[in-house]
């Protein structure tokens, strides 16, 4: 089922929430792959000038021993030094919080940011760690066995389906 | 005590017998009669051999018993037990024990050890040179008197061709047979597999065919010069078979044997470094295996032997080239030979001759046949009995066989040595 969610409106909503932070000259970092696509849109609409960073959190996941390495792991790329910078971290879905935990661990291996603000397109129930988003595109009410996936980069589409056993 | 073996298919190639017939054995352990009981014969025991084959006890032309010197691997006691369970009533052991069999005392000691256990006979081969060092001749005539049935330098190549010539001449003086392992030591080197594509893939040092043929050519030239009677041990390559066939056609007094495993396995069986397939000479190509089979059929190769080399487990639990070569082969000698009959390569009588009468002839020992007056060394087996070789059920102390887990055909039910039942399979 493809839920009819107005992604553009959601992204605009996130941009509005983030606009006040522009005075702190933030650095934007997206989490592969959905977060990077969203971040590209935000990067443009907020008029940021420094290059966008991209994180692949495969090496920081907590389920490596069980599941193994992601065959499509990409290289993380942080072109700008993050020491003492205010980071806007962007992802597509905030669910349990584990991806964000991994992303923050990875960021801190690159340097010591002044602050991290989290922006997500979708927030859904099921938080397992004390992590919350500061800018949210939209909230979805989903059953535990449902999965939501962002496809892209163009067009961006949200797909909601049943989780495979 | 007379013994009757009733209703079996009696196969006695030496006497050209292959028919259902009873066998009668007298109190002294000799064959008294065939088909019909002699007058006044009283059987204290009757063995029902109906549906089974009755043949001479097997003669294994090369088996290492590890005693003296390597008793942690096996002993005469353990291996003669294994031998009779496999239908083998006569074993020929090489002199490369520790100490070497180059004195009459050693030769007698080994035979006496065998007599003590009353199972298979052991006939030792004497050392061709003293200490197997390839420098001085051994006391061959005395060793012959003491029971040695032939002379060999085993795997210690005699590098000095003059010494080899003299040893052959001396042996020929007394009509003694030399047993030769055609191996050029330099080409053999540290090799452990057949030099070819498989060896290259595995990155293991190879033994080229030339290692065998170079030595074979040298030995044949000297046999021709000295007139000694010679037996070639363990041919492994097609080229060697051709060379021996040529020598025989010219009337040279040579015989040859092949190991049971070389008739079935090839370099492909090594797989992922299976040390159970580490043997010297190595398992070679399919072409070589087929030529060895053909050589047996044509009579170029006369005899099949086990080349029994029992090992303790650690000997095989090492990287391939570091593992010790050799297969524990007593228990598969009969079934592997019979498999050639199953595959239509040999006829049954020919197969049995290769492991009874022919080896007995080479060592000139009165066994391997069941005519009237013969020593009652008998093997009774089920020709169509399929069984699986299981490591824990092997009788030998050495469980190092690549045939473990394989289904084999032909299982011994009774073995007699000198008319005494020394092995009987529990059929319940």
């Amino acid at each position, binding site marked *: 089922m493809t839920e009819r969610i107005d992604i553009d409106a959601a992204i605009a909503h996130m941009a509005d929430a983030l606009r006040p932070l522009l005075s702190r000259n933030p650095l934007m970092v997206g989490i592969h792959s959905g977060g990077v696509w969203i971040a590209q849109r935000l990067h443009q609409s907020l008029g940021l000038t420094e290059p966008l960073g991209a994180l692949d959190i495969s*090496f920081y996941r907590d389920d490596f021993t069980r*599941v193994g390495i992601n065959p499509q792991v990409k290289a993380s790329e942080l072109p700008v030094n993050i020491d003492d910078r205010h980071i806007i971290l962007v992802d597509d879905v905030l669910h349990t919080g584990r991806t964000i935990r991994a992303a923050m661990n990875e960021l801190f*291996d*690159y340097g010591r940011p002044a602050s991290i603000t989290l922006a997500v397109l979708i927030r859904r129930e099921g938080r397992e760690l004390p992590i919350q988003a500061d800018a949210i595109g939209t909230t979805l009410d989903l059953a535990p066995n449902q999965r939501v996936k962002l496809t892209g980069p163009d067009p961006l589409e949200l797909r909601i389906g049943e989780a495979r056993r | 005590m007379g013994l009757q073996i009733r209703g079996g298919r009696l196969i006695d190639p030496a006497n050209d017998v292959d028919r259902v017939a009873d066998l009668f054995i007298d109190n002294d352990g000799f064959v008294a009669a065939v088909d019909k009981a002699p007058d006044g014969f009283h059987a204290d025991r009757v063995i029902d051999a109906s549906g089974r084959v009755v043949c001479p006890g097997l003669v294994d032309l090369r088996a290492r018993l590890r005693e003296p010197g390597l008793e942690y691997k096996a002993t005469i006691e353990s291996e003669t037990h294994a031998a009779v369970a496999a239908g083998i009533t006569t074993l020929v052991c090489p002199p490369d024990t520790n100490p070497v069999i180059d004195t009459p005392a050693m030769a007698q000691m080994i035979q006496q050890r065998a007599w003590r256990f009353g199972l298979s006979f052991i006939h030792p081969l004497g050392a061709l040179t003293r200490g197997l060092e390839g420098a001085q001749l051994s006391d061959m005539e005395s060793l012959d008197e003491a029971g040695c049935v032939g002379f060999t330098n085993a795997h210690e190549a005699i590098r000095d061709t003059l010494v080899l010539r003299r040893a052959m001449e001396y042996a020929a003086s007394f009509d003694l047979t030399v047993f030769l392992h055609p191996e050029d030591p330099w080409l053999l080197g540290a090799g452990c597999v057949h030099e070819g594509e498989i060896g290259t893939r595995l990155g*293991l040092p190879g033994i080229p065919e030339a290692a065998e043929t170079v030595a074979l050519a040298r030995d044949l030239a000297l046999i021709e010069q000295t007139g000694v009677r010679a037996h070639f041990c363990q041919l492994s390559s097609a080229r060697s078979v051709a060379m021996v066939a040529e020598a025989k056609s010219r009337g040279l007094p040579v015989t040859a044997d092949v190991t049971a495993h070389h008739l079935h396995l090839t370099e492909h069986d090594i797989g*992922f470094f299976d040390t159970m397939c580490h043997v010297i000479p190595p398992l070679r190509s399919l072409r070589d295996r087929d030529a060895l089979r053909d050589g047996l059929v044509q009579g170029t190769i006369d005899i099949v032997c086990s080349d029994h080399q029992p090992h303790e487990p650690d000997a095989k*639990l090492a*990287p*391939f080239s570091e593992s010790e070569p050799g297969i524990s082969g007593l228990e598969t000698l009969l079934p592997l030979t019979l498999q050639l009959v199953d595959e239509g390569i040999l006829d049954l009588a020919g197969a049995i001759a290769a492991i009874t009468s022919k080896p007995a002839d080479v060592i000139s020992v009165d066994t391997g046949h069941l005519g009237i007056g013969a020593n009652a060394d008998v093997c009774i087996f089920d020709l169509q009995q399929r069984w699986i070789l299981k490591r824990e059920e092997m009788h030998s102390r050495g469980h190092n066989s690549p045939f473990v887990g394989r289904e084999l055909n032909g299982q011994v039910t009774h073995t007699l040595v000198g008319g005494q039942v020394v092995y009987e399979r529990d059929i319940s």
Partner: protein
Amino acid sequence: MSADMQLDDKGRLRNFLTIEGLPRETLLEILDTAESFVSVGEREIKKVPLLRGKTVVNLFFEASTRTRTTFEIAAKRLSADVINLNPGVSSTRKGETVLDTIDNLEAMRTDLFVVRHSHSGAAYLIAKHLPPHVRLINAGDGRHAHPTQAMLDCFTIRRYKKDFSAIKVAIVGDILHSRVARSLIHALRTLGVPEVRVVAPKTLLPTGVDALGVTTFHNLYEGLEEVDVIVMLRLQRERMEGALIPSEQEYFRVYGLTPEKLSIAKDDAIVMHPGPMNRGLEIDSVVADGPQSVILPQVTNGIAVRMAVMALVMGGSAAGERGGD
């Protein structure tokens, strides 16, 4: 587990013993995973927590500081605890077998063994002996295989030449004794390199080498024509004593890679060497230090490739879905 002990029932890499028998997908997975590890080595904290809490034992029965060091660095960059052991001669003198050594170490909760041994087949012997949850990477066994070296060589080639199906590769030197050559030949052929050449005198070529899918040359000039990648193998000085080649002078004259011989190959050909180099024997210093040499990048790439192999081998013991987000 497949008969060759390398892939599990799902086709995932469990032990890395030899290139032979691995499908192209597996080799590409290693190369692609290695790409992502390169950037780890370029940032300040050169670590990722992938193997945190795991114990990696470098068990080098045959000494090698270079290879052992790269494996050590690779394991540490994955945050593993690393132990280096060189049993070498001393244990065998005491009579402790290879498997005894493994048992003792395994009892200390080792998760991954990296083993180098001077005898072919040692890695298989050990892999057969280990319980299923303990993994093994072959760092070189006798003449048989050196699969991580082959992968880092292919990684380097891909970085410079991009398309495996469009290049000619020549491997020059002592193929007979070389596990690097054997593994590299398997890897190049599996990855689709159309022409792999070996260049050596007959004494240094193993019997039946053609069956591995290579063309043989005894003449270096002919062997290097139109070649895109040249891999020079180290010639051990003992080969003179074994009557395999006559002298160092003759070897350098006939098979040594000099600028003049290098010019026979394509203008943009790259020169590789698994190291350590014998300057003035198999390779001229001018070439080794020249613009076409990628010998130093090979070393750097070695760390990323070994990290990739370790990560693949150690990951995902249990079947499971990816965790929640």
